[in-house]
């Protein structure tokens, strides 16, 4: 291995002498590469759109808008923020719903209970799977994994009432003491 350093010194001296025009040293970020690939391969239903509020130089933070075309939330418009860390895909993206929504699996702070975002995340999953997972929450809200306890209880015991509540919330009204912004 001494040889290894020997040549290195030689090269360093050469580099000093000639005005080297070699590669600028660049760190390679494998996480970012994988994310860019995920993004170009997105295959989203028409009801989901992606946007990049920080422009093309920051793809690690983006927004996904979901407009369900069926189910309780039909015609609503819900915006999610995605934060992808440099450890991606070893770690799941951090996802929040920034539209306040009356939903059994999304709390009023925008936390989302979706298994693949936490306990079931695997590096083979990708952004597309996450968006489909979110989409699925609107077509099939599920009272068994509640984050909004009240909404889950209503969905379980009285689906008709739940539907009314969802409509009222999306129209910009109150459900119980909580007001919701209009998102329809």
């Amino acid at each position, binding site marked *: *291995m001494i040889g290894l350093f020997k040549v290195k010194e030689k090269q360093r001296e050469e580099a000093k002498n000639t005005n080297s025009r070699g590669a600028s040293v660049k760190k*390679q970020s494998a996480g970012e*590469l994988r994310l860019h*690939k995920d993004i*170009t391969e997105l295959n989203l239903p028409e009801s989901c759109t992606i946007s990049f509020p920080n422009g093309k130089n920051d793809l690690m933070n983006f927004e996904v808008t979901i407009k369900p075309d069926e189910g309780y939330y039909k015609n609503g418009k819900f915006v999610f923020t995605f934060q992808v860390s440099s450890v991606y895909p070893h770690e799941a993206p951090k996802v929040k719903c920034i539209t306040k929504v009356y939903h059994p699996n999304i709390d009023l702070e925008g*936390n989302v*209970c979706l298994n693949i975002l*936490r306990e079931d995340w*695997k590096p083979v999953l990708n952004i597309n799977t996450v968006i489909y997972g979110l989409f699925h929450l609107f077509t099939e809200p599920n009272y068994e994994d509640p984050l909004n306890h009240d909404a889950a209880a209503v969905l379980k015991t009285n689906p008709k009432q739940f539907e009314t509540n969802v409509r009222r919330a999306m129209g910009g009204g109150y459900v119980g003491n909580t007001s919701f912004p209009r998102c329809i």
Partner: protein
Amino acid sequence: MADLEAPQSKSRDLDKLLLRAGNLVGPDFYPGTEVKALISQLSIVSSSFSDFVIRLLSLRVLVVGAGGLGCELLKDLALSGFRNLDVIDMDRIEVTNLNRQFLFRLEDVGKPKAEIAAKRVMERVSGVEIVPHFSRIEDKELEFYNNFNIIALGLDSIEARRYINGVACGFLEYDEDDTPRRETIKPMVDGGTEGFKGHARVIVPGVTPCFECTIWLFPPQVKFPLCTLAETPRNAAHCIEYAHLIKWHEVHGGKSFDPDEPEHMKWVYDEAVKRAELFGIPGVTYSLTQGVVKNIIPAIASTNAIISAACALETLKIVSGCSKTLANYLTYNGGEGLHTKVTEFVRDKDCLVCGPGILIELDTSVTLQKFIDMLEEHPKLLLSKASVKHGKDSLYMQAPPVLEEMHRPNLSKSLYDLMGRVQKDTVHVFGTALKNEEKQSSLTKLRVVFKGADGVADMDTAIGA
């Protein structure tokens, strides 16, 4: 015994390794005082040393991290005869470090780890020069890392390892025949511990697997489902995570939680206690709260010592060639009995970080559009609908439409200009490749060389002609 009259050399044991030939030595090993001087940078430069040894007196080792492993590493390297060390760490000393980070004292709490660690080792080991860097690893210029011959890692996160690995592999260059150029290899020795378990590995980029080649080795972090936290907490950790992940944002809105802020931690602890009382769950303590929130696994001093010893020895071997290095991944488990094993992992030859990539020669006039068209014809690639990324910059993205549009103006520009007019550099391309007559999603590294760029290029062919 025979040495009773001769003064005991501090490096007596080291001498046995470095001054004598042996059967297990590496191919480049030349025993003698030169190699010892090389490592320990003898302050008196003997006139008998060859030029190359004198030049090598600038051999430098960087220790990344001055925590549990870092303290051990600095001490071990200093006592192994290394005289010229640097250490980088962004953290300050906390009371809870003192049980194992033995270079620190109670009065050091609050001071930068790197500075105190360097000072303490220099006080105890004569002749060693340690330069501390109280800094984030990401805040150093990439060229900073090129000053070192070898990098020893005592880190506790995948993120930091991935960063350093990316930097070290970024220096690696390949010849036309995909052989790594030795002078561009930046070896790393990586240690890691978790309770009674640990690993030590030798990463020689281009020769042994890099961190990215084997990233799958790391188990995923345990994460509790949010709904369990919100609805059916069953243990103390659930109560703490509820306070940390849900309650904090509910009460503090946009203010982000800072795990290094004691007031924030206290707040989470108090909330977790309330939650635990509500559900009749025992076991929430302040230290458990810190442990769960910061994802701390109890550190065992002797695990650190064992792993660090292995790392220091490998560093010595890489530098001196006095023995073959570990090939290439040692695991240590002291939890159930004691078990160590060395596994020789293999490189991912298509690794996006350390792999050679595919060599492509281009004229400086080639536009990005032309380049993308060429990728489709290239026999090794057959890549259609390619997107192109150069370092941090994406040059072109085929989709989604909103990004395609933002990048479209680049298509008519020359790739040479887009890449900052360098003679050669790496780009990554991704799209749909035709492999075995099947279309597959593909992500590939390319080494682009521009023909006739700025005179310095084509040196080899110029000599041949």
